[in-house]
């Protein structure tokens, strides 16, 4: 596509700004594999600031089309933040009410952003993590099934479908036959499942890897340690060619390096993704002498700014 035309595109709705995100080459953090191209797809360029705009838009539009979501219902789901921002944005743009269940310890920024769109927040026990939020939203919906539309991003096929038709296709459009590897982290697993399915259909084999936190108690917000979690129904463990474990510290350190060395201030899940991508690049360099690895930048780092140390009485 003509770059100038693309950059100056005129849109009739904010929802048309979702997708077609840029793919950026990483030079410095991947210099341990100089013969391998490493690219990161900047999903924070979506209007809601994260990769989650894709599934939220798709889940809502699909539900509106077949009548599951109507204007007299409230959309409700559990989310640690980015999906909530995306639902809130799409809901505001289309005129649908949104309520979100999130663990009480999500960052204040997340709460403020979603509330800015007019979204109602319901808090679950921070000790129970995201699984506690899932259990609470199910209870609320069970008590009032007619009042709510519960998209359930963990089991909704529109979630991976957004990546099959969007993320995966866009990567192929941008790189064609050059891409040899793809890796992304597992949360709902929507990004990994949908993108991997599309890339596996390509005529030449693309080795697709899923990254997950090494430990059950981890600090890679947005990612799930599958062995100790409620496994999302959309997750097919046999789909990825490999599962790569990422230590929290490695993901955090890579986030810092991406900001300082590449000018990419990203969240920790992106740090984990890029760490895994560099591992794969090093392996490709050693075993094949070259290659092209693609991963995802899920969101920007400013979404995770914690309160300053002197703000002693903060709640998150």
């Amino acid at each position, binding site marked *: 596509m003509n770059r100038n035309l693309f950059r100056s595109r005129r849109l009739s709705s904010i929802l048309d700004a979702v997708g077609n995100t840029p793919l950026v080459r990483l030079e410095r953090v991947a210099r341990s594999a100089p013969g391998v191209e490493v690219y990161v797809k900047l999903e924070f360029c979506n209007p809601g600031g994260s*990769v989650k705009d894709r599934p939220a838009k798709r889940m809502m539009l699909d539900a509106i089309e077949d009548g599951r979501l109507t204007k007299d219902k409230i959309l409700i789901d559990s*989310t*640690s*933040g*980015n*999906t909530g921002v995306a639902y809130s944005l799409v809901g505001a743009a289309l005129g649908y009410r949104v309520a979100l269940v999130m*663990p009480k*310890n*999500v960052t204040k920024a997340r709460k403020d952003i979603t509330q800015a769109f007019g979204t109602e927040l319901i808090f679950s026990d*921070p*000790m*129970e*993590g*995201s*699984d*506690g939020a899932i259990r609470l939203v199910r209870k609320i919906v069970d008590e009032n099934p007619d009042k709510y539309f519960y998209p359930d*991003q*963990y089991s909704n096929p529109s979630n991976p479908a957004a990546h099959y038709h969007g993320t995966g296709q866009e990567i192929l459009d941008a790189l064609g036959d050059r891409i040899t590897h793809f890796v*992304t*982290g*597992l*949360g*709902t*697993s*929507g*990004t*990994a499942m949908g993108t991997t399915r599309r890339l596996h259909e390509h005529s030449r084999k693309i080795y697709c890897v899923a990254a997950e*936190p090494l*430990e*059950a*108690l*981890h*600090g*890679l*917000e*947005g*990612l*799930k*340690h599958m062995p*100790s*979690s409620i496994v*999302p129904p959309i997750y097919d463990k046999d789909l990825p060619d490999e599962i790569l474990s990422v230590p*929290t*510290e490695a993901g*955090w350190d890579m986030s810092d390096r991406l900001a300082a060395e590449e000018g990419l201030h990203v969240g920790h*899940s992106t740090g984990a993704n890029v760490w895994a991508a560099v591992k794969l690049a090093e392996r490709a360099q050693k075993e094949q002498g070259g290659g092209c690895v693609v991963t*995802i930048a*899920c969101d920007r780092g400013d979404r995770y700014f914690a309160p300053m*140390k002197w703000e*002693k009485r903060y709640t998150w």
Partner: protein
Amino acid sequence: MVTIRIPTPLRTLTGGEEQVKAPGETVRAVIDALEKNHPGIKDRLLDEKGVRRFVNLYLGDEDIRFLDGLDTKVKSGDEISIVPAIAGGA
């Protein structure tokens, strides 16, 4: 005795218990006592520099980083919470 609230991901180490009790006069001593009954838990919480960066330990409602860290004094009846990072969905 101090009560320690255990988050879901660590309950494999406490036989599924949501709360356990341990003695000690500082947070550090309580964690050492916890390790005796639930081997492996200390490694999940601490590294050589102290509390791991992504683990939050609360005494009551206060993060111990804003108190005296691992040297924070505790008394019988206090409650320490191990609060996990959020695990959502990418």
